């Protein structure tokens, strides 16, 4: 997994609350057995229109505006990523090029899935997010600098917003770590737990029933 330290990039604003993972990546793209290649289907229903049986870009959709072509930071409203647990949502966001999302709140499963895929989720207050939406609208090509070690979002005008961060998630993102290797360092503890449970609750093991 790619490590995350500091990112300076253009911010794309997606001004709607409760953006669900069905909207991020609709079901017809979940039939893949791969992790890669989902970026072109990100926000498919909003991003494309059907014209004469052909798929064309919807000029109204924010990501289709040329100014946001190189956006790496997504600015969103509350409860972003709600609904289905599909990890295809962060796969699509990452494959498209987003490395960080700023919003007042994120759904729990989506947030977990983002950490597994090197996407940094930044929780700012609803007022701060609202202010950033105004800034993005007023300043074409608006950029932000995200400093994960310092847990700060920095504007080009040198304002700073601190954001909270789970220490474990931060460590994982900074180092691009894979959990399985880390967990297998506790193999002895897992075996000991299993042995004790086999004694106290044998019905949890199908050969124990």
């Amino acid at each position, binding site marked *: 997994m790619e490590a995350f330290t500091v990112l300076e990039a253009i911010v794309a604003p997606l001004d709607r609350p409760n953006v669900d993972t069905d909207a991020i990546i609709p079901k017809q793209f979940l039939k893949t*057995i791969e992790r890669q290649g989902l970026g072109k289907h990100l926000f498919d229903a909003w991003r494309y229109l059907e014209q004469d049986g052909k798929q064309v870009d919807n000029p109204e959709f924010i990501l289709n505006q040329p100014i946001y072509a190189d956006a790496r930071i997504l600015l969103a409203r509350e*409860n972003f990523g709600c*609904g289905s647990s*599909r*990890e295809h949502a962060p796969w699509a966001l990452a494959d498209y090029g987003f490395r960080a999302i700023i919003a007042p709140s994120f759904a729990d499963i989506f947030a977990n899935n983002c950490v597994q895929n090197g996407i940094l989720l930044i929780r700012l207050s609803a007022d701060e997010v609202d202010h950033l939406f105004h800034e993005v609208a007023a300043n074409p090509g608006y950029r932000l600098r995200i400093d994960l070690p310092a847990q700060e979002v920095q504007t080009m005008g040198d304002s700073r917003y601190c954001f909270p961060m789970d220490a*474990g998630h931060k460590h994982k993102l900074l180092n691009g770590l894979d959990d399985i290797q880390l967990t297998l360092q*506790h193999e002895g503890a897992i075996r000991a737990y299993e042995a004790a449970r086999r004694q106290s609750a044998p*019905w949890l093991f199908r050969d124990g029933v």
Partner: protein
Amino acid sequence: MAAKTLYDKLWESHVVHAEPDVAVLLYIDRQLLHEVTSPQAFSGLRAAGRKAWRIDANIATADHNVPTTDRAAGIVDPTSRLQVDTLDQNCAEFGIEEFGMLDPRQGIVHVIAPEQGLTLPGMTVVCGDSHTATHGALGALAFGIGTTEVEHVLATQCLWARKSKSLRVWVDGELGRGVTAKDMVLAIIGKMGTAGGTGYAIEFAGPAVQALSVEGRMTLCNMAIEAGARSGMVGVDAITIDYLRGRPYAPVGRIWDQAVAAWSELHSDADASFDAEIRLHAADIAPQVTWGTSPEMVAEISATIPDPARESDMVRRKGWTDALAYMDLQPNTPLSAIALDKVFIGSCTNARIEDLRAAAAVAKGHQKAASVKVAMVVPGSGLVKAQAEAEGLDKIFKEAGFEWREPGCSMCLAMNADRLEPGERCASTSNRNFEGRQGAGGRTHLVSPAMAAAAAIAGHFVDVRDWSAQ
């Protein structure tokens, strides 16, 4: 000893290792696998040369992509077929038990695991599916995970997890006639909002919850995720134990007695405290209908569609305006005036035998409205289907002009051939009314099975409490 919540008990009994201030390594007793969220997990294992840690902790079935007609003909869509074939191959390679597409035990993972006794009280249950919360109805800690975590559980039988805060939803009194667990949970979501439970584990409790069957409790816990919570749960009582007795994978004999004794502790202590509590009165809950594109956009059947102009919160006002535009609905329209193109009775929320009985009781002796193109009944599992047929429910549905299908997720998310066409409006017993959920451009209204059946016959929403008078 300090009083504990059910969630405390479930959590503490599964801690393998605790890192100070970071996360806990939590042991997982049961993992359910399906074809959509597992292929990349198995590829990951294969690439790293890893085996499954504990094969017997896993059970697999294909449910999202499977056709609900002519099962023996196989899957027509090649990408759907590849995904289902990939699950078969992965299960064979890694030695995991699978209920294949033609097995009578096949069905929606969240229907078949409780049905088989594969979900037991006191377990941690995970699945790459957000509706895993369903299994909390049996006093288990059950939650949805992503594919990377599916791989992690396959490889280590554990997950790194952080304890949620606790929220008790307490429902007093008794539900009125014609009002169901589905109406209860929609009313709860209407009150809490879809982000109200974010960061919480919900325990549903109180006299109205205790009065529900295990199937009703599953409907309730199933939609905890629609209130933002990864897990919902109900304490174990005699109803839970009665439900489990004799299930194929439930313990027997001396081990059963030992299990029952342990399970009887799986409820919150009387003086346990919760981080938050929400209280409702069951008698205040009427049949619910969603009108928008988020489950929190819900109202009782006698209501009219709200006017965004009267909402003072600007973000919410915009959300409502966008939703009504997508749904092609006008403010102040009575919900009972909304006409339907299709009706879907099914999904992990409402496709168990009691749901089908409730829908059949309404449909019996009536005819689907001519204006409703399709009313589809999709049982949650092969065994639910067989039970319904033994009771003659299939006949009632077919005589009323409904279609009787093979089990699967079907039009809850339209990954198979069952879907809405752009602009079509559907009364659905599923769990999500998101834009395009049941097919691109489709419009979904969430209701209970009885309300869906009544809407299929009337052609528009009606109050099922008035049904017997019709």
